[in-house]
């Protein structure tokens, strides 16, 4: 023990060193915050001039997006916001039931050996790059849709929805599975002891108990679908107009940025307005993630 009056030099040095090391790690920890704030600020800084000079009305009430028109340049984001939401909604209609059913299967029924096959399948599916999924959209899903529904080509919102469903399935499945697995065995035993079948227990006890985790998984899957770029860029046809239905060619927010950023004049109003799209996109996914976060935290509390 060091006497309080003469603390020895080695100890002071050691404590100093430990402090510096801790600070070093702390600064690294702050980096994530800096990046998030940086993305937010940069999008805002780059997009703000466009918002100021054109006004919110132009962006959010105008239905037409045509920044290169000779007559009147239009900067309405509505059509692409609707397109993004539509494609996402379609994806969720497919992926949510399929994902939850599959998660329930893995978590509740599958034998260990089957689980060991299907878990890597989902991991590999999650690892397939979005361009490859988009490629499948062009080559397989598109022609298939054209044949079934008799349209000229299958590059439309429906195609995008199918592909985004495939892309968000791994997220939905793995997080829902965790939520279902986290349901305490006592709940299930109580239900089984009352004479319920395994199926009734699953549907009436286990899944409701895991509901907030499942909702969070859906939100995260949705966030992924909203932000996905390459698949929709390749498979939805990219017509920049308000879609009338799932068989219309649509152009999402992400696709618009991908298509147009390379063709704009840097610093011009068109260029800046693409950052406005990015900003709106950022906010949308931010809110979706935040909601899933809140739901997830609630469920963690409940399960404890």
């Amino acid at each position, binding site marked *: *023990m060091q006497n309080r009056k003469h*603390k020895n030099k080695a*100890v002071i040095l*050691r*404590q100093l060193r430990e402090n510096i090391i801790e600070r070093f790690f702390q600064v690294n920890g702050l980096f994530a915050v800096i990046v998030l704030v940086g993305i937010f600020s940069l999008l805002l800084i780059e997009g703000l001039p466009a918002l100021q000079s054109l006004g919110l009305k132009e962006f959010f009430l105008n239905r037409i997006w045509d920044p290169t028109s000779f007559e009147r340049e239009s900067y309405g984001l509505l059509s692409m916001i609707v397109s993004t939401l539509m494609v996402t909604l379609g994806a969720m209609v497919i992926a949510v039931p399929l994902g939850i059913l599959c998660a329930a299967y893995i978590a509740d029924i599958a034998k260990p050996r089957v689980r060991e096959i299907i878990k890597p399948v989902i991991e590999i599916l999650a690892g397939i790059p979005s361009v490859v999924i988009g490629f499948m959209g062009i080559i397989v899903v598109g022609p298939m849709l054209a044949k079934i529904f008799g349209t000229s080509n299958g590059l439309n919102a429906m195609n995008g929805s199918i592909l985004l469903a495939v892309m968000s399935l791994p997220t939905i499945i793995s997080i829902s599975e965790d939520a279902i697995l986290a349901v305490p065995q006592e709940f299930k035993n109580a239900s089984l002891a009352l004479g319920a079948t395994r199926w009734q227990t699953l549907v009436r006890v286990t899944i409701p108990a895991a509901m907030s985790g499942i909702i969070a998984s859906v939100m995260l899957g949705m966030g992924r679908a909203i932000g996905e770029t390459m698949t929709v860029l390749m498979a939805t046809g990219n017509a920049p107009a308000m879609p009338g239905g799932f068989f219309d060619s649509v152009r999402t927010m992400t696709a618009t940025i991908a298509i147009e950023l390379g063709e704009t004049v840097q610093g011009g109003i068109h260029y800046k307005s693409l950052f406005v799209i990015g900003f709106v996109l950022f906010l949308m996914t931010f809110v979706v993630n935040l909601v899933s976060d809140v739901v997830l935290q609630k469920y963690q509390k409940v399960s404890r």
Partner: protein
Amino acid sequence: MDELILYTEHFNFYYGNFHALKNISMGMEAHKVTALIGPSGCGKSTFLRSLNRMNDIIPGTRVEGKVIFDGNDIYEKNVDVVDLRRKIGMVFQKSNPFPKSIFDNVAYGLYINGERNKSIIADRVEESLTGAALWDEVKDRLDKSALDLSGGQQQRLCIARALAIKPEIILMDEPASALDPIATQKIEELIFELKNEYTIVIVTHNMQQAARVSDFTAFFYLGELIEFGDTERIFTNPKLKKTEDYVTGRFG
């Protein structure tokens, strides 16, 4: 009581809002074994871990009062925890050898102390393993993984590891609770040997063990120190009814 090497004054401990230790004042004599007994959850392990500030690493804890070691309060701001723990070693309930060789486990404390001289390290490793009554069993396989030892050997290895840095006090948190009777007996014999050189504070829930190995016994109940005194007196002639009930096995 003479020569108190370590004592507490009105020591209180809190986990968040839970008042885990209430106003504990007691002392440990040098070169003696002090046993802390009491039913589980009574605070005896918390008290033990307060003596070398191992509770510091648990978030949300708070202390009041003093723990005096070598004339200084170990909870004073300018006390160096690292120095403190080098002088007050600890052996845990569940043996926790590191996934390194037997040799490296014992040498670990020397290594982090900056000792690099190989022959000094080798000597000290042998000395510590001998001190922990393990040398003869492992001297031919010092480079083998410590995880391959039996439970009792692992616990003695952990004791050797603590001995290697020559602490003044060794805190033992139910060191034999996970061991079979023969391994337990070896640990108890070891404790008896060790008190020639070290001061030992041991937490145990095994009454016979406390009676066999300790010179002094402190009985904890619900975070309070109920009774403290010579082991013989505590077990044969306790002053308080509650102590008597506990040591005779009427509750626990």
